[in-house]
């Protein structure tokens, strides 16, 4: 998940100051790596230039953090597109899926819907690999099996997450 998408997603909840965005980014998406303030403001500046966020009035006080940013319709549709586009099925996509689930829950959207889209995309890839295994050489089968087992692991995570959405929702939105 790119930093701009993460910030747009967080802004879709409600207009926020840079420090609030940084705090929530670090909590949910940072995975132990804090986002430097400089990058927050640089990103917000670019998003504003591209019409995806709108800076509010300058508020009284000191420091760079005196503006509240709000998402625009263009920004919203970028978040929507990101959520709605299934990820290329390959091993190690768990973190992106994790981010999608967390963001969807935060925004009160159907995380189940995104998991369903991903399940369908994964199964489609597994069908292709199964076909390759059935029609190809023993070496093809060996490679296909490696992919199949990894995709299966993703799918198990997807199913388990889908089954836990209620408790996850309660946690993320508290």
């Amino acid at each position, binding site marked *: 998940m790119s930093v701009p998408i993460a910030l747009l997603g967080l802004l879709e909840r409600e207009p926020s100051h840079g420090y609030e965005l940084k705090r929530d980014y670090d909590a949910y998406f940072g995975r132990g790596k804090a986002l430097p303030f400089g990058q927050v403001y640089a990103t917000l500046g670019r998003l504003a230039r591209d019409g995806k966020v709108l800076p509010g009035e300058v508020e009284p006080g000191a420091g760079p953090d005196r503006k509240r940013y709000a998402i625009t319709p263009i920004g919203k549709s970028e978040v929507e597109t990101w959520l709605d586009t299934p990820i290329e099925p390959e091993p190690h996509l768990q973190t992106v899926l994790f981010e999608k689930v967390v963001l969807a829950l935060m925004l009160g959207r159907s995380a189940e819907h995104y998991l369903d889209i991903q399940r*369908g995309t*994964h*199964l489609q890839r597994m*069908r292709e690999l199964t076909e390759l295994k059935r029609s190809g050489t023993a070496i093809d089968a060996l490679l296909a099996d490696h992919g*199949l087992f990894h995709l299966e692991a993703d*799918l198990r995570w997807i199913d388990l997450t889908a089954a836990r959405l209620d408790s996850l929702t309660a946690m993320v939105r508290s």
Partner: protein
Amino acid sequence: MSASQAADDAGQPAPILEAHDAQLSFGVTPALRGANLALVRGEILAVMGPSGSGKSTLLYCLAGILTPDTGEILFDGQRVDTMGEQERSRLRRDHFGFVFQFGQLVPELTAEENVALPLLLGGASRSRALDAARAWFEPLSLDGLERRRSGELSGGQAQRVALARGLVSRPEVLFADEPTGSLDSLTGEQVMELLVSATRRQGTTVVLVTHEARVAAYADREVVVRDGKANSLSAGRVRS
């Protein structure tokens, strides 16, 4: 106008098996709360979903074993849910084949007698039924086990015998409920490979209940049952 006719008029192949808003409760437990799906001839459909979501109940309804409380089940355009019990058992015997999770072989009979059973019940002579049954043993790597009592087979062997029994009458539709449920990965794959190659060769339509993605990947598409609801048009479909 029935749904199959409608599909005909639209120039698509008519479905061989359909469920329209099928609902079924066991006492106060709702097991199916609206199942909608259609299979065309020769298609392999994987039915997936969490434990207790209603997969087996859906399969039993499609196969005319259970009757939904409301909704319609159609085979080849004919209502199955309104048929009498006799007509339904004839339908199952003449057009359907079954494979269940735990083989469900008759332990006192030999493996070949178990496989021959659907043919014998259909009125075939004993020698013809056994001949047809034996033809399945080699392709399923079961040669030499024809005369073994089925109670003396390993789980994987029994499962393959059950598959042969499900396919021996060359059914139009094969209903398979967790056919690899008790097998290790390798044996499970052998069973799926045989199931797919045999049904493709025979043009058999397959309803395959499984919770395993690697098994479902042998199917043409999947439908996910959740809380007794299924919709083959939208559930989990990949947009291309």
